[in-house]
């Protein structure tokens, strides 16, 4: 009996994992990645596996395809349609892959080979399993592309990956996964690399496919909003073990385990704990203006005759002393560029930008340098923003070394105080950056930015590389320090919920222009611009009931636009 003829009735398990243990062999010894995991996936079910980084969620789900890194050792059983994927090798394993189970990767731009057409890449899987003509395979590829909602699939089947947008590329990856109508799709963070508005579309597509084709989907994610949006059943993993598994509604409304509760509590929820709650006007409107942009333009020249790119196009904004200005936007909106231009890392090309009274249009490193001690900067990736060869103490002392010539012992005392201020033990001064966790490094990064007690702090997505529970703690620290030291801050983020929690005044950027500005609670509750409305509606909230209403709202907005 062939697999295609096997009709899986409702309730039958497509995937069953029994007592799975995985270790990774490293120089430092064996690192346990997965411990005693049991799970089932039924036909037509969407199972979400959530957990923070290092929880073993990806490693577990990938065993369904028989994928395991070369230094991994697995024990247990992974039955896919009754066959143990852990013991299969070579041809029988390849026979299963693509036909019975397929995978959707996180980053669509690297999952597709740039030198082949998308049609070729979809056909590759089809022709590996069925001896059919090229013409027939192409017809199937076109069919698959139509299914995932790519317009004009007949023409676009011959396009190359770079001719598609990020969201469409992910649709192509999904089409390739669907081409052979597998019973199970494993989607590893399929929307993490995408903007929220695109994320909403991809999630809608996955849900549709499940309803139409009855494909079981295992979705791996760290985003509780995504889980609330799409999952039927949820498995929470922590440190390689399953903490809790429950139907989605039950998990969100009545979590049983302490870990699940703390994880849910750490997720920023749009519209709750707004920094500007109850405010009617800009609280800092009367105080000194630290940054003032008028018609600011930042243009990056193209290469050799290619047209350049205007990242920031005529933006007006003011940051007053002591206030937190939140700048939100999707990738490519120019939010990071504005932050970097204020810090003198990018050159502006038009308009006017005054930073602490200094006109950046006439930027000269030598004349700007004395002002640098008034400006702190926190970078997105805490792992990359420290010199790996210097200790944390040396890194934090760097601004003191450059601007204040204190003695060695005075510097050391000051570094100790700074570390204490960001709630790190003073002993961390002697450690190297790689010996700290992501959250600890970002605290040290805050300490470095605040070492000279700056008037202005620029925080460029300071928490987006962190897990939610760590993010919550870092944000809390940021809030406390801001209240205590009273510095002004430009807080740049793609996450509306985070921005609203921290900043009173919020600006929404879209393709280099500032669409709207206002009190955080007002902008989020009553967005004026179409784009802001879509952006807010697209952000999934960690509450399945509320999320269902929001989904209806996006569909309505999409209909209006059509």
């Amino acid at each position, binding site marked *: 009996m062939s697999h295609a003829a096997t009709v899986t009735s409702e309730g039958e398990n497509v995937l069953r994992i029994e007592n799975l243990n995985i*270790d990774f062999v490293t*120089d430092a*010894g*064996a690192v346990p990645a997965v411990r005693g995991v049991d799970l089932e996936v039924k036909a037509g079910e969407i199972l979400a596996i959530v957990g923070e980084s290092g929880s073993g969620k990806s490693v577990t789900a990938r065993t369904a395809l028989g994928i395991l890194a070369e230094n991994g050792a697995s024990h247990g059983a992974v039955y896919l349609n009754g066959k143990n994927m852990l013991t299969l090798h070579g041809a029988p394993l390849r026979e299963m892959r693509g036909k019975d189970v397929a995978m959707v990767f996180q980053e669509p731009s690297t999952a597709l080979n740039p030198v082949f057409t998308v049609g070729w890449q979809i056909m590759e899987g089809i022709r590996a399993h069925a001896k059919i003509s090229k013409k027939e395979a192409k017809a199937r590829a076109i069919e698959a592309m139509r299914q995932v909602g790519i317009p004009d699939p007949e023409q676009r089947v011959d396009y190359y990956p770079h001719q598609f947008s990020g969201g469409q590329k992910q649709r192509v990856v999904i089409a390739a996964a669907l081409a052979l109508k597998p019973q199970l799709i494993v989607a590893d963070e399929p929307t993490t690399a995408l903007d929220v508005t695109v994320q909403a579309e991809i999630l809608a597509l996955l849900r549709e496919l499940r309803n139409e084709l009855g494909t079981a989907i295992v979705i791996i994610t760290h985003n509780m909003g995504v889980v609330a949006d799409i999952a039927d059943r949820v498995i929470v993993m922590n440190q390689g073990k399953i903490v809790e598994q429950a139907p989605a509604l039950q998990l969100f409304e009545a979590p049983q385990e302490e870990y699940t509760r703390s994880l849910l509590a750490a997720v920023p929820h749009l519209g709750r704990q707004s920094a500007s709650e109850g405010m009617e006007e800009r609280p800092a409107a009367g105080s000194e203006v630290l940054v003032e942009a008028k018609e600011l333009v930042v243009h990056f020249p193209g290469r050799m005759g290619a047209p350049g790119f205007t990242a920031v196009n005529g933006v007006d904004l003011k940051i007053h002393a002591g206030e937190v200005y939140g700048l939100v936007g999707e990738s490519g909106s120019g939010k990071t560029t504005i932050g970097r231009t204020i810090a003198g*890392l990018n050159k502006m090309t038009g308009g006017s930008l005054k930073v602490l009274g200094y006109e950046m249009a006439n930027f000269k490193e030598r004349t700007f340098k004395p002002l640098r001690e008034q*400006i702190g900067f926190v970078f997105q990736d805490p792992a990359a923003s*420290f010199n790996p*060869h*210097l200790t944390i103490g040396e890194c934090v002392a760097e601004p003191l070394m*450059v601007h204040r010539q204190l003695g060695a012992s005075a510097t050391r005392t000051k570094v100790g105080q700074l570390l204490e201020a960001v709630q790190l033990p003073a002993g961390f001064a002697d450690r190297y950056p790689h010996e700290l966790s992501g959250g600890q490094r970002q605290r040290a990064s805050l300490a470095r930015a605040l070492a000279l007690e700056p008037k202005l702090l620029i925080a460029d997505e300071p928490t987006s590389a962190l897990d939610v529970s760590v993010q919550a703690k870092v944000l809390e620290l940021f809030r406390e320090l801001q209240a205590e030291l009273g510095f002004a801050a430009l807080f740049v983020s793609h996450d509306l919920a985070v921005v609203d929690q921290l900043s009173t005044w919020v600006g929404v950027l879209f393709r280099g222009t500032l669409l709207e500005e206002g009190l955080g609670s007002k902008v989020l509750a009553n967005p004026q611009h179409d784009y802001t409305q879509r952006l807010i509606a697209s952000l999934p909230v960690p509450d399945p009931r509320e999320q269902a209403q929001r989904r209806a709202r996006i569909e309505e907005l999409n209909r209006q636009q059509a």
Partner: protein
Amino acid sequence: MGTATLSKANQSWAAKLPIISHLRMSSGLQRGMLVAGLIFSALFVICAVFAPLIAPYDFAQSSDANGDFPRQAAPGGQFIWGTTASGYDVFSRTVYGAQTAILVIIAAVVMSLFIGVLLGLISGYLGGWFDRIMVVLADAIYAFPSLLLAIVMSIVISQGQSSLYGGVMAAAISITVVFIPQYFRVVRAEVMRLKAEPFVESAQVIGSSPWRVMFTHLLRNATRTLPLIFTLNATEALLTLAGLGFLGFGIEPTSASEWGYDLNRAMSDATSGIWWTGLFPGLAIVLTVLGLTLVGESMNDLNDPRLRRFSRKKAKRITQAGGKA
């Protein structure tokens, strides 16, 4: 993970030295390659350092108290590897050849390392016209066949000098000129990549001066791959020296022993069935180059976790140890 990194920090400094740490990481075939390379290289270094103790005669000695040495004597007896047409002992000359080779390697690699790294650092970080000129210069040197350039340099520098010092420095400087672009290129590319890293930008927004950024933040991060180029260039330096000697631009046999020169002399012997004058210096070159290359390649593979392989035995041992813990 936390305990793993801590225990690493407590390891003695000796275990962190390049080659020793590589040896600890390796297993299976990779370890075999590394160990073989280390043995050949160690043999080479020992020969160079203890040449006067190992060699029975001096490199330019063609007679002793009992009179002149026989010419082109076959291996065996008093001369274990035979003698050359000029009556030199092949074994002694081969052993002393290591001394010349190591002097040239050290001088060439050290000079090109310092100049190349400094230029690459400045050129990569500051950019602008200096960078453009340096890149064009480096490309121009690349465009020359390196041996031809070395010949020209050796004529310009030594002007026919043939003393040990003059000959070694001529060879070393000519090799240096050829190698500077390599170090320059590698360091420049690495610096250009690092320049966009947040930790460099964070130093810039603090207001650090370019010199501070270059020497505190960039230098140590940009020179990670250098031990590898160092070993690979050492072999090239050796081959260039042998090539110069073979073509007759080397060191006179009375100033120092040099393998390439000996090979050149052995050419006419080979046709008349005298194999020992060419075989031993030739083997010395091959084994030294092989040894240094194996060390370099193994270090390259072991530095990259994706290329590092665990043998089945070692993987099993580690998983079992982990299972018990």
